[in-house]
């Protein structure tokens, strides 16, 4: 039964009789034979013929079997070429010598065809397996090299996107080991236009490339939104949405975000999934944990996302410490974890707050000791200070802030020719949305402007009576009439005037809209109860709820609302 491919087998034996028998047996097994009658010849033939297997007599003239075997194995290199020693040596010492010289097995004299057949089969299996392993090894090496290259590119992009922002401020110390970054840790910090600093410490699930990939949209969103004046909660919501949509289910980012106001000495915190940070108070050296109260970013839908934060009043010299779980889960040689208790200890033992940062790091590193594990440490410290002790930007903004106000006016008129095709609302809303502090009120302002414009256009310019809309039939009649009239209108106008003014504490938006219509008797209307549950009405009650005031001027063809908001600071 010959169920394998034909092999090329080298037979080396100095006794003609033995060699002849072996050659015949091997040929009968279906393989090709090359023969040598001394060790030197065996090695030469091995080099020139590259056989798949070697049958080698131990005792040969010129070069004995042991030396031949050594040379043959050397020439074979990575390839596994089985060498079977032909011997009637029976003492253990000689047999050991055979194996030491590189022999893989023995074939004893007298030769048995069955035994030789079995050994050829078995060693051929091994030889083929070894060849497969070599191919796979080379494949793996190639893949690894490619992966490393990809990672280097990713790291380059990552370093440029998730850069250090304002982490070099005078009141900040931080440490992110490269293993921590590899494990998905990320530290971002930027200055808001109002002089506050926003910091984000994030820890993505996963390691290496998958973790880094999540960090990039987070960093670009963060560094994109903050300088535009978006608030901490705006940014959190946006980041959460992005991660929820782009990351697969099960990948998320544990994070803590801070908003620090150096003028008002206030700290606002949101912690979703990171171990509790410590707030250290200089006055009594006490520590207060800043616990995780939220799910990590990227888990909840935008609807379910919670952005409520905690606020703290700080004094100069108070410090806030943030870390990912790398410190808590750092292991020593015995396999114990560092844990929060030891961290609390470090604070308790410390006598100089200036050294706290170093104390934490040195304690963790001492704990890890000589275990081969690299540091997986992310540590952030910020000290409450006056703006001039933070950085240039903080200082400049604080100087500007003293008694400063921003005010502007905007006028906009819609001419008759454009009524039927032009809707001014998107333009106006876009302008307003460029103002960072108004962004949270996007929806409300759109509603207010839409209500005012619709009233001005339909009731004022087109002269439609809102009472028509009281019944469902009347409703469709109304809109038919609206369509007709708007096609035909050739005179009239709607003027929109917006004035914006903001001070330190709050802002005011005054929206005045004037139409070319006859107006209405607002004194009478306002007296009666205006419900918004009916189809009709000017929606005045709705606007009254959203604005500080609503009033009509002149004939009733000028509506003015005042919208106020607290300046997020």
């Amino acid at each position, binding site marked *: 039964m010959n169920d394998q491919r034909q092999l090329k087998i080298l037979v080396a034996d100095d006794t003609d009789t033995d060699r002849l028998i072996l050659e015949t047996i091997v040929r009968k097994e279906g393989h090709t034979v090359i023969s040598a009658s001394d060790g030197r010849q065996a090695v030469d033939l091995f080099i020139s013929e590259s056989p798949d297997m070697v049958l080698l007599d131990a005792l040969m003239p010129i070069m004995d079997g042991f030396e031949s075997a050594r040379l043959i194995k050397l020439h074979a290199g990575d390839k596994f070429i089985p060498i079977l020693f032909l011997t009637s040596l029976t003492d253990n010492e000689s047999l050991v010598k055979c194996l030491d010289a590189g022999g893989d097995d023995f074939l004893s004299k007298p030769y048995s065809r069955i035994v030789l057949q079995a050994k050829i089969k078995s060693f051929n299996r091994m030889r083929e397996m070894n060849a497969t392993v070599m191919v796979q090894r080379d494949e793996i090496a190639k893949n690894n090299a490619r992966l490393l290259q990809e990672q280097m590119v990713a790291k380059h992009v990552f370093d440029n996107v998730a850069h250090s922002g304002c982490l070099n401020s005078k009141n900040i110390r931080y440490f992110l080991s490269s293993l921590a970054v590899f494990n998905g840790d990320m530290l971002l910090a930027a200055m808001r236009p109002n002089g506050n600093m926003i910091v984000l410490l994030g*820890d993505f699930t996963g390691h290496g490339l998958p973790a880094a990939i999540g960090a990039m949209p987070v960093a670009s969103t963060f560094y994109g939104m903050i300088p535009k004046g978006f608030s901490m909660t705006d940014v959190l919501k946006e980041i959460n949405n992005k991660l929820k949509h782009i990351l697969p289910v099960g990948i998320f980012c544990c994070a803590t975000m801070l908003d620090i106001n150096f003028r008002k000495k206030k700290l606002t915190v949101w912690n979703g*999934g*990171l171990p509790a940070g410590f707030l250290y108070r200089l006055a009594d050296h006490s520590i207060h944990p800043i616990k995780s109260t939220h*799910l990590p970013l990227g888990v909840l839908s935008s609807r379910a996302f919670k952005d409520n934060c905690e606020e703290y009043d700080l004094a100069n010299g108070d410090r806030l410490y943030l870390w990912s779980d790398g410190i808590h889960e750092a292991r020593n040689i015995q396999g114990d974890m560092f844990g929060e208790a030891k961290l609390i200890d470090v604070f308790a033992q410390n006598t100089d707050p200036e050294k706290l940062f170093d104390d934490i790091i040195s304690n963790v590193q001492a704990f890890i000791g000589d275990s081969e594990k690299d540091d997986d440490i992310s540590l952030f410290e910020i000290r409450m200070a006056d703006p001039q002790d933070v950085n240039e930007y903080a200082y400049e903004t604080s100087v500007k802030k003293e008694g400063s106000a921003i005010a502007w006016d905007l006028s906009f008129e819609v001419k008759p020719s454009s009524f039927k095709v032009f809707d001014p609302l998107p333009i106006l809303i876009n302008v307003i949305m460029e103002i960072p502090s108004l962004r949270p009120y996007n929806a409300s302002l759109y509603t207010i402007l839409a209500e005012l414009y619709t009233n001005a256009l339909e009731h004022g310019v087109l002269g439609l009576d809102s009472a028509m809309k009281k019944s469902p039939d009347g409703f469709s009649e109304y809109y038919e009439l609206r369509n007709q009239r708007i096609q035909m209108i050739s005179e009239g106008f709607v003027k929109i005037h917006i004035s914006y003014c903001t001070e330190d504490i709050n802002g005011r938006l005054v929206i005045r809209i004037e139409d070319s219509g006859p107006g209405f008797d607002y004194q009478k209307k306002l007296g009666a109860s205006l419900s918004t549950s009916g189809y009709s009405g000017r929606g005045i009650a709705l606007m009254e709820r959203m604005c500080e005031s609503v009033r009509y001027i002149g004939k009733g063809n000028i509506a003015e609302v005042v919208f106020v908001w607290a300046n997020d600071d």
Partner: protein
Amino acid sequence: MAITSSASPDGKQVTIFIQGRFDFSSHQDFRNAYERLNPTPSQYRVDLQGTSYLDSSALGMLLLLRDHAGGDQSNIQIVNCSQDVKKILAISNFEQLFEIY
């Protein structure tokens, strides 16, 4: 780490038992325990009695189970949690998404 599961006689309730470390190496086995079940269970229990350690990829796997079980409509209990496991789940505020005992 070993993952086994058992179902109630009518197949409506499935309990998944996790032994040892619950980490990324459990990924495929964990999924096999709840995917393609017939009938589709209406309630899932994850029993962590034998679980010594939970890492963030395990949290991720729980989220995958939740997604599979209907997201906000899912009914998943995580039971027999040790103190350590409870702490990890608490930091991530997973009690907002799962019933934890």
